[in-house]
């Protein structure tokens, strides 16, 4: 079980249920680019029922796409969208619109560069960052290198812990902001915004068990229980709707001790709405189970790509939607096609020049 799940399992039982039964659909996107510039893109989904799924992936809506339903078994359906493009510009323009904020922003650029002997095809497609965890910048917790590694599939425990810390810091920020807002309304001489800010990090460490950077976060359920009057009891701290009544009291007790003010006990409404905001964030964008299997077939020989899997001139990427939480996911590939006619023409030119040079030299010697 990952750190994320361990933390959240007790944090929000109900959300775990959402994750467990949520959509774990795989979107297959296959793009074929031919040497003559024509292209084809196919998007395949397995929605189960014969119903277009509500996917964060921007599914085609215009009539230019062929939509096809095929039955793969009893009540199992496969939905396929296909579109042919006459040239690379047409394909690049396909996603050149401002995407709905609830959908993943896709940016697709394909460029053909003529270099006499060879023609190069540069393919760059990126899925924009897709996350509701926007209160804390990932760079506050992770380095640029770590962000890159997480995005491109690194599943190291340490890195996962740091990413989890970033998620929890976002949740904490939502709760903390509500607390500050509530404290302002109290007009308490001690609970000023500056005073709250001075104890912000300390409270975070209390709630996460003072875990060091990269360490696994402790279970907040047991932390709240241990540090409150509910220690040793079987009181239910979290329920289906977040904090229970006991949980709220436990949280207020811990907060009052950290901020050294019993006035915090009057902020139960703020605490509850803070947890509500955190809950919304947990259910937000980028937290569902979709995954993407993306492949591109380029003409000629594949020269460069950041794809983890390459078969001939096909580059493939496979990633889950959570990889888009920290930054854009970029897929790059470059291929090269040999211009045989250009090589033939160059050969003739070289041969002609060589003959002329030779004859010219022979005549020069005769003189």
């Amino acid at each position, binding site marked *: 079980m990952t750190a994320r799940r361990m933390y959240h399992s007790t944090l929000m039982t109900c959300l775990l249920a959402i994750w467990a039964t949520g959509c774990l659909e795989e979107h297959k996107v296959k793009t074929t680019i031919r040497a003559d510039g024509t292209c084809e893109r196919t998007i395949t989904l397995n929605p189960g029922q014969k119903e277009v799924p509500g996917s964060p992936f921007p599914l085609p809506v215009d009539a230019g796409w062929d939509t096809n339903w095929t039955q793969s078994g009893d009540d199992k359906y496969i939905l396929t969208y296909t579109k042919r493009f006459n040239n690379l510009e047409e394909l690049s323009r396909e996603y050149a619109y401002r995407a709905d904020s609830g959908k993943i922003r896709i940016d697709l650029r394909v460029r053909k560069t003529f270099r006499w*002997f*060879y023609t190069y095809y540069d393919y760059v497609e990126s899925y924009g960052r897709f996350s509701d965890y926007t209160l804390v910048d990932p760079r506050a917790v992770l380095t640029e290198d770590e962000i890159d590694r997480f995005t491109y599939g690194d599943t*190291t425990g340490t890195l996962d812990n740091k990413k989890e810390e970033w998620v929890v810091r976002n949740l904490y920020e939502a709760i903390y902001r509500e607390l500050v807002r509530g404290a302002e309304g109290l007009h308490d001489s001690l609970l000023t915004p500056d005073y709250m800010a001075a104890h912000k990090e300390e409270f975070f460490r209390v709630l996460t068990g003072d875990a060091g950077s990269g360490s696994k976060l402790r279970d907040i359920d047991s932390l709240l229980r241990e540090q409150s009057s509910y220690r040793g009891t079987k009181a239910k701290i979290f329920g289906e709707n977040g904090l229970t009544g006991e949980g709220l009291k436990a949280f207020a007790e811990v907060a009052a001790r950290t901020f050294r003010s019993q006035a915090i006990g009057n902020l139960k409404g703020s605490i509850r709405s803070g947890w509500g905001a955190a809950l919304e964030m947990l259910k937000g964008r980028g937290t569902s189970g979709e995954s993407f299997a993306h492949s591109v077939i380029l003409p000629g020989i*594949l*020269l460069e790509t950041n794809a*983890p899997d390459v078969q001939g001139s096909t580059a493939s990427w496979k990633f889950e939607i959570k990889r888009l939480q920290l930054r854009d996911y970029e897929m790059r590939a470059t291929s090269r096609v040999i211009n045989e006619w250009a090589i033939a023409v160059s050969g003739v*030119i070289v041969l002609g*020049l060589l003959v002329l040079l030779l004859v010219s030299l022979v005549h020069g010697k005769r003189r």
Partner: protein
Amino acid sequence: MNCSQAQDLIYLYRPGELTGGQRQELENHLSSCSACAAERKAALGTEMRVSAIRNIEPRLDDPALLSGAIMGAITEYNPRTGGGFLALPAWASAPAFRVAACIALFILCGSFFLQSALDATKLSALEVRLNTLSMTGSAAGPVDIRFGSLFDPHTGGLETLPGRVGIGESDIRRWRNDAGVSGALQTLFGRPEGSGTTGFFDYLSKKHPRLASIRIENGLDDREREIIASEGEAFLKEVESLMREGGVHHDR
């Protein structure tokens, strides 16, 4: 005036050419010397014929025939162009043409080979990367070591190894290309801050506690050098073989 002096003046015996004295002396000599008088008569005849030719108008029946004949003769006897199979236009023999031809050949061939070499470099880098990925596990591989996790080229921890412990540089280069091995080495030798340990690294640390205790960033003392010299090579081989097997699993 003697005959020799008279011979020099005979052809100048025309109005305006001689002074009055010279003319008088010449006339006196011609009247007394028959040879010089005969010479003077012959010169006079030649002058009269030349004058007659000057008065004749030039006439050409077929001018084209003449120019054709001239050009033909020039071509036939021009040693630079000659004729037949090896005929070349004049510009083709110019040194400037030769230089230009050489430059054109150089550019054409050079750009082809340069472009091909650059592409070959990219291709080989791609192959190395894909091989590394396949060695350290693809998407389905052991997750803890998949990307070598902790290798950071900026720390230089691995770079400092060859000179200090006597491990061959080729080995280091080979292992450097293996992200997983590099990551393991970096963790054990470099210990980047906050790296933590996974089951994989714990396993190695337990098996090589003496090596794991070394902190390369603080420099090496004699005892640490001795540990690396005695256990380093075996450890690196073990790491490599573990990586090839797909890493250490927690139940191992």
